[in-house]
């Protein structure tokens, strides 16, 4: 394809810092295409190796609590109602009624029109940008397909922010990415980031969903991760959960490696959120290990790592109960939501 060299991209400080002030589609493309490749076999082998770590006793106790603290408890259904959202929020605030020492989850994640209900249900438990409490995350930008005009994506975003969303989970335009229009994807992320701006000048946190299941190759995931970071994303997120495969350990490892590269380059810490398909504690612990051994333990905090999950929480609670009581209970000993 021909590259429109004259198209000057929206200013994003990270991209300017790395690529230079003459930021164009061409310079961006040159940078992304110049990244070294990913060897799929080697990446998968490393992920499989990390998955063999044996996390026992005190380490397991710590890991289970940490997983809960890192969960974005999610409901993203066409059938969501205010009642369902209230129920989800109640679970987020008090995950295990039989054990008050159970930590709270990091956030609840809902569609944009449910943000108001979530905020109301949280009441004083709503973090609202504070360091304690539970955040409200909203999916936006014509989630999950992202197939709509920029104007609608921006309106979608600012609606959610005005309704009180602390975090915005946007999707990238995979069609544009796959056809090589990196500049378009970049500009959209920059614009959505701007739409995350609140009246007081602060920003809602922006998670950029790459939908790795549609990008298909690890090389693409790597490029898209760089693109999302350069355009100003606070988090890079694997998937919407609506496309298979969703989060996998190798993809998450790869995204963590990009985050590590960015940190080595700039000292800035970018968050990572695998979402979709992580259902068991055992699986989630493998992600914790991968984070700790790739970017460091510091990343195991809600502002740098999240699990996008719905059923994971209950499995963690069952494991937690097992450790406390010494025996396994069953699915009726945890609440459905």
């Amino acid at each position: 394809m021909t590259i429109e060299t004259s198209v000057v991209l929206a200013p994003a400080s990270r991209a300017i810092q790395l690529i230079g002030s003459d930021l164009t589609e061409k310079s961006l493309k040159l940078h992304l295409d110049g990244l070294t490749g990913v060897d799929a076999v080697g990446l998968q082998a490393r992920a499989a190796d990390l998955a063999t770590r044996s996390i026992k006793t005190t380490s397991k106790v710590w890991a289970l609590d940490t997983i809960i603290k890192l969960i974005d408890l999610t409901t993203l259904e066409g059938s969501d109602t205010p009642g369902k959202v209230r129920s989800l929020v109640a679970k987020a605030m008090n995950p295990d009624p039989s054990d008050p020492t159970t930590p709270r989850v990091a956030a609840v994640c809902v569609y944009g029109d449910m943000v108001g209900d979530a905020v109301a249900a949280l009441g004083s438990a709503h973090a609202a940008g504070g360091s304690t409490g539970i955040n409200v995350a909203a999916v936006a930008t014509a989630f999950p397909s992202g197939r709509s005009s920029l104007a609608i994506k921006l309106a979608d975003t600012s609606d959610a922010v005005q309704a009180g969303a602390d975090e915005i989970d946007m999707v990238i335009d995979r069609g544009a990415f796959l056809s090589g229009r990196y500049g378009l994807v970049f500009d959209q992320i920059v614009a959505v980031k701007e739409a995350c701006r609140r009246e007081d000048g602060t920003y809602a946190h922006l998670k950029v969903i790459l939908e790795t299941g549609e990008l298909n190759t690890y090389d693409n995931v790597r490029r898209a991760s760089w693109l999302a970071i350069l355009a100003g994303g606070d988090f890079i997120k694997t998937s919407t959960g609506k496309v298979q495969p969703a989060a996998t350990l190798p993809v998450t490892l790869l995204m963590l490696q990009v985050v590590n590269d960015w940190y080595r380059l700039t000292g800035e810490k970018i968050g990572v959120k695998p979402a979709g398909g992580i259902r068991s504690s055992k699986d989630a612990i493998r992600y914790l290990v991968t984070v700790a051994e790739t970017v460091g333990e510091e990343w195991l905090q809600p502002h740098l790592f999240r699990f996008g999950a719905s059923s994971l929480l209950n499995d963690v609670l069952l494991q937690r109960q097992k450790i406390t009581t010494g025996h396994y209970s069953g699915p009726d000993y945890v609440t459905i939501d």
Partner: protein
Amino acid sequence: MSFLEYAPAPESKSILHLKKKYGLFINGEFVDGHGTPFTTISPADESPIAGIAYANEADVDTAVAAARRAYEKTWSRMSGADRGKYLFRIARLVQERARELSVAESLDNGKPIKESRDVDVPLVAAWFFYYAGWADKLDHAGYGPAPRALGVAAQVIPWNFPLLMLAWKIAPALAAGNTVVLKPAETTPLSALIFAEILQQADLPAGVVNIITGAGDTGAALVNHPDVNKVAFTGSTAVGRAIAKSTAGTGKKITLELGGKAANIVFDDAPMDQAIEGIVNGIFFNQGHVCCAGSRLLVQENVHDEVIDRLKQRLSTLRMGDPLDKNTDIGAINSKAQLDRIRALSKVGEEEGAQRWSADCEIPAKGFWFAPTIFTNVETSHRIAREEIFGPVLSVLTFRTPAEAIAKANNTPYGLSAGIWSDKGSRILGVADRLKAGVVWANTFNRFDPASPFGGYKESGYGREGGRHGLGAYLDTGWHPSLTAAATPLSDALEAGSAKKPRRASVAKKGASK
């Protein structure tokens, strides 16, 4: 607390049913040796594990006689399909007792349990399964219409992969119809003796495999025994050279797998994160006790600093400690003697002006330990760039062009293996073609498969193990004792050879498999 200080997750030793002392496994039974018994210890804490018999010359004689008898009376008369049945049975028993074998291996050798569990023991089973399949197909292996077994094979194996090297030796020997006398290394006899119990369990006819323990003189007596037809040795080049000398002209067929100083070549377009993993796996797998270890890192100069930086970051996440802990990445050095050698050569490296960096590992008070170490600013003339260290020590050199990389990679007396890291397929193939190494790995390292032949150039030895080629090392494929460069003139030898073997008139092919 720190999550990365994972709570201990030790594999239990209760699965082991060790005897206080072990005899020699001769003619299907454990018998006392006539040398002075010794004790095998755990290199992780120097604690004694079991008493081990020491075979003297008389014991070697008994073992070879048992193997000869089993060859004449049983094994050479058995059909290939029946031999295959025994090999399949052994493979399945290895799988059944995998956990026990893994624990024994890590205890005696010092290697981390995750390696003995995920690499060594699964490969042992794979080797027996693979060669079991060949046992009834020898006529179709490409060695003529009816290749024959050689007779009694004398096999001497090293301590770095005790059970895996045993499988590399015994599986093809039995599949081809030979009987075996095997001597495990002095410091790591344990898993071979448990394997002997597996042979009893498998009802393998008595004498087909004999396992004798001892030290260097036991091995020497074995390979020099006059009634041995085949010698297979894996170990140091110095010992290999001595064996080649002492067996020259005896008519024994011989394969040697010796040392190495493999180049692991990283080009600037390499998939960087995977290349770092490959470098780590290349030299720190099994504490670097690997003859094909990627001990010379050749990095393209323009990415040198980045590679070293990333490598150091990665190495600082390696976990050294109890070999039986499931989270241990780096175990113990196998013996005091080996530790001394690694220390001495590392000291030489410093004196030669190379820059040393070691990972910040806590060294346990007891046992033999050496932290993962890299030397930068290494020049081709340095001893640490030329001599095999056989430990967790990496020498880093740089190159500017592919031609220089190839020249430097080949500039070694060894030639066992090499690695290439590049995203460009044509470069990988082009460079691989010009590397004088028996195995070349591309974008991976230290991967083994029973179907793949393995062996070296130059001082790394001769002959191939693994695959169809490894089978040929245990078959009479037209080569004959009287065709060697012994005292008889070549013309006489040819006559004698063709008189004895009218069905095939072939010329001396010793070493042709190279």
